[in-house]
């Protein structure tokens, strides 16, 4: 039997398709890994009995022609899964079992994948370190004192630790790309509207987008292909033909023009990241791409804009968690208002409350124009920056994050410095365009670092190809031991 810890998703698919290995064997392998990996706390819920049942069924009667035949997968606990607890990392949904399946996960199951369990995440996807989860912090497999990033921290941790051959996350301001960068994995945030939001617990509706998290670019193309697609239940879903990203994957990027935005050379950026960026530029040049200096003048407003728009939408999206219909309800309180106050007071964590407060404030009468409306205008300017650039270039190369994975507890009392971690990823969400983060090296402490490739809307194939080409030349290797086993 091949070493599944060394196998990519695509390789596993091939092994199952050629009957070299059964779905049950693969599923058992990952379950064994998960059971030995409790220290990382990357799972909130597991459903092994169901997984094994489905794997056995697949091996006898399953359809081998799907994109993910009999492949066990764990997913972020923000995707509603029918009959399986879905918490969004919050106490307020501690015991919530959906009667429905999100469109994106359903797409995976239709391609033959099998659910292993639900992965830890920051509460309602609000956080950059996975420390705001009600179910405890997740640890980065790179080292026991490091955060895996967030909010898809459980997904990144589980993927890097080989608890799942690939996974999916959601990215509102960098929640896929930043943890991918922190764990030496690949993460892609698709164009807004490429993957349906139906059945995903909402954080900020105009920014939320689901995407693949994988060990390599080939897997990323495959998983994106499986999960994306038009959905008439989501009014913001893009109605277009499904693409064959994996089939069309190519390392030929000759003649592509790659922009290097000067505004991303932020103050106090570690030398190592500066160097990594330079290395990426050199690699692209060698592959025949043309490097162009570009300017995205409104970049510095992206983070403040994001921290108005996202909390505003969140404050409204989270109003439904009131203890009336489902989820946690406080037993205290003499009347409806007190029941609300106690339920929400006890059910939400600090970071969620902070954002509800900010969001409520910026939408309030008298402040709306100064904050929310202005933020919407700036958002348009940020989008215009990208639009203008993409008239002359094919893609943009930037670092994924301004630092490598930080220590557990290092930033918990300093929300601003935590927010600053999203400085390179947030503009992409505001513009609704796609970006991929690929592992590109390590810092001098051995922590992975990522580079980000951005394109205009719906050019996922292009950034996948660029990333695919760079990946070959970088030949990144994970260097950690399975210390948790």
């Amino acid at each position, binding site marked *: 039997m091949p070493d599944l810890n060394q196998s990519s998703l695509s390789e596993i698919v091939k092994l199952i398709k050629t009957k070299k290995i059964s779905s049950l064997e693969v599923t058992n392998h990952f379950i064994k890994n998960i059971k030995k990996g409790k220290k990382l706390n990357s799972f909130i819920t597991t459903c092994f009995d169901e997984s094994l049942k489905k794997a056995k069924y697949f091996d006898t009667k399953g359809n081998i022609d799907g994109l993910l035949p009999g492949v066990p997968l764990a997913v972020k606990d923000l995707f*509603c899964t029918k009959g399986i607890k*879905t918490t*969004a990392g919050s106490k307020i*949904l501690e015991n*919530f079992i*959906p*009667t*429905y399946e*999100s469109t994106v996960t359903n797409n995976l199951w239709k391609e033959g994948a099998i659910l292993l369990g639900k992965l830890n995440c920051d509460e309602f996807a609000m956080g950059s370190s996975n420390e705001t989860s009600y179910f405890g912090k997740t640890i980065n497999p790179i080292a026991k004192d490091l955060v895996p990033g967030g909010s898809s921290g459980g997904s990144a941790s589980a993927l890097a630790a080989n608890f799942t051959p690939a996974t999916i996350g959601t990215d509102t301001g960098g929640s896929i790309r930043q943890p991918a960068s922190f764990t030496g994995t690949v993460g892609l945030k698709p164009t807004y509207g490429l993957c349906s*939001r*139906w*059945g*995903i*617990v*909402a954080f*900020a*509706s*105009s920014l939320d987008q689901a995407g693949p998290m994988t060990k390599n670019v080939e897997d990323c193309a495959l998983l994106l292909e499986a999960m994306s697609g038009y959905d*008439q*239940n*989501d*009014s*913001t879903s893009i109605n277009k033909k499904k693409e064959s990203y994996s089939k069309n994957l190519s390392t030929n990027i000759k003649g592509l023009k790659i922009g290097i935005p000067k505004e991303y050379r932020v103050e106090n950026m570690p030398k190592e990241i500066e160097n990594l960026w330079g290395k990426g530029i050199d690699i692209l040049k060698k592959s025949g791409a043309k490097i162009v200096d570009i300017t995205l003048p409104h970049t510095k407003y992206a983070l403040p804009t994001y921290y108005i728009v996202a909390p*505003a*939408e969140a*404050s*409204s999206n*989270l*109003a*439904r968690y*009131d203890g*009336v*219909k*489902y989820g946690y309800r406080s037993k205290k309180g003499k009347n*409806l*208002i007190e029941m*609300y106050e106690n339920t929400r007071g006890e059910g939400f964590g600090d970071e969620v409350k902070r954002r509800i407060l900010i969001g*409520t404030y910026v*939408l*309030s*009468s008298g402040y*709306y124009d100064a904050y*929310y409306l202005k933020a919407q205008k700036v958002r348009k300017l940020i989008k215009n920056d990208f639009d203008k650039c993409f008239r002359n270039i094919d893609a943009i190369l930037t670092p994924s994050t301004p630092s490598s994975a930080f220590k557990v507890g290092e930033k918990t009392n300093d929300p601003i410095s935590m927010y600053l971690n999203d400085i390179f990823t947030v503009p992409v969400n505001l513009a609704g365009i796609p970006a991929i983060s690929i592992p590109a090296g390590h810092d001098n402490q051995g922590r992975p670092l990522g580079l980000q490739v951005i394109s205009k809307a719906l050019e996922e194939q292009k950034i996948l190809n660029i990333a695919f080409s760079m990946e070959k030349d970088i030949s990144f290797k994970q260097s950690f031991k399975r210390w948790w086993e």
Partner: protein
Amino acid sequence: MEKEKFDYYIKTEKNSWEVIIGLEVHAQVISQSKLFSGSATKFGAKPNTQVSLVDSAFPGMLPVINQHCIEQAIKTGLGLNAKINLHSIFDRKNYFYADLPAGYQISQYKNPVVGEGEVTLDMPYGSKKIGIERLHLEQDAGKSIHDLSPDNTFVDLNRSGIALMEIVSKPDLRSPNEVNSYVKKLRTIMRYLGTCDGNMQEGSLRADVNVSVRKKGEKKFGTRCEIKNVNSIKFMEMAIDTEAKRQVELLESGKSIKQETRLFDTKRNETRSMRSKEEAHDYRYFPDPDLLPLKIEQSFVDNLKKNLPELPDQKKERFIKKFKLTPYEANVLVSEAATSKYFEEVIKNADIKLAKNWIIVELFAVLNKKGLDIKESPVSPINLASLINAISSGEISGKIAKKVFEIMVQSGDEPHKIIKEKGLKQQSDPKELEKIILKVLNNNADKVLEYKSGKEKLYGFFIGEIMKISSGKANPKLVNEILKEKLKK
């Protein structure tokens, strides 16, 4: 006919006050399914049986606009001669309540689907145009039921998410009477269009009423109060009158009006403060990021416009021109689409003048008394036409016709059958009539003498006697002719 003068002022010893009224009418859209979900909208279903995951705001659920509701709103806008906005936006109106599952209502705030329009009212003092400020689409909330248990409130989400049109008038209304007329006119237009059934008992039509007062002749508006959720025309009229008087009383005693939201207590006929301006909700409106801006093609609007049915104002004009009705008669006949349809069916085969009178006077009296809709009329248009033709042809007299009509109301029978069975056919044989007349004159020889010596009033007495003997069946026209002849001699 002399026109009456407008005269609704709150008169006190010192002053005469004008009342300024604006209405926000909430009209339920006729639609099989809700505004943003596929749930049914049937009235009176068991609690919580018409609720989808979207209506109950489960995590990750998303709204998808129901195109039929958009069509209905545009049609209504066209019926109000209003501007259709080709670009409009759905916003979230945020507030907490147990029967509002998402914690926000999807509505339209700054960019409604329909803009300014107008409605024409026919008042006794002439026609009056009432401006429409806007019409927007929004979701209804669920229903909280507080009186089923002493300890609990029950929530029924069947209404949650049902499409409403909020039609906002300009502050152009000046009396309870005008409000009555305005609401009825809106209702008529929407019923013609099939966009709202206007059924106030079922809550398909309700209104928030804005009232302020100012001294007669003044130009500046006074401070207004909003009376929330009034669900019948009668209550609207009462509430306005009561509220206007309350405001006048306050102002005349030197106090000022506080802008606030009030509730109308129908039992006590008084309005009560619900919340002041300071306590007013901050709804934190913002565009719903789950929905794209609503873009409508001009051709789509044009197509709806082309297929619009004849509206009450157009129909009225046609009735006046084509059928020579008075504006009053035309108004009465077009006020309900079903009434005008009834009328037009009757006059296909019968005299217009008789038809309009029979419908407006006799038929309406019966329907009113029985509390029936014209669609449920026991007398069908064809039967009424037959009855009218029996009158026109002299088969029966108008008086007998009333008797036949009464029987038609009871039995639903065809008039000729009744005339035949009851032997009500008019006596039109001159020889027979002459016999009766001579008999009456012979029996009352003294009165004949009196008549001839100048007491002409007795003519009526002779007619009465003749009718008595003929059981009312004598053809009045012929009786007249023969009697006059006989009395001359």
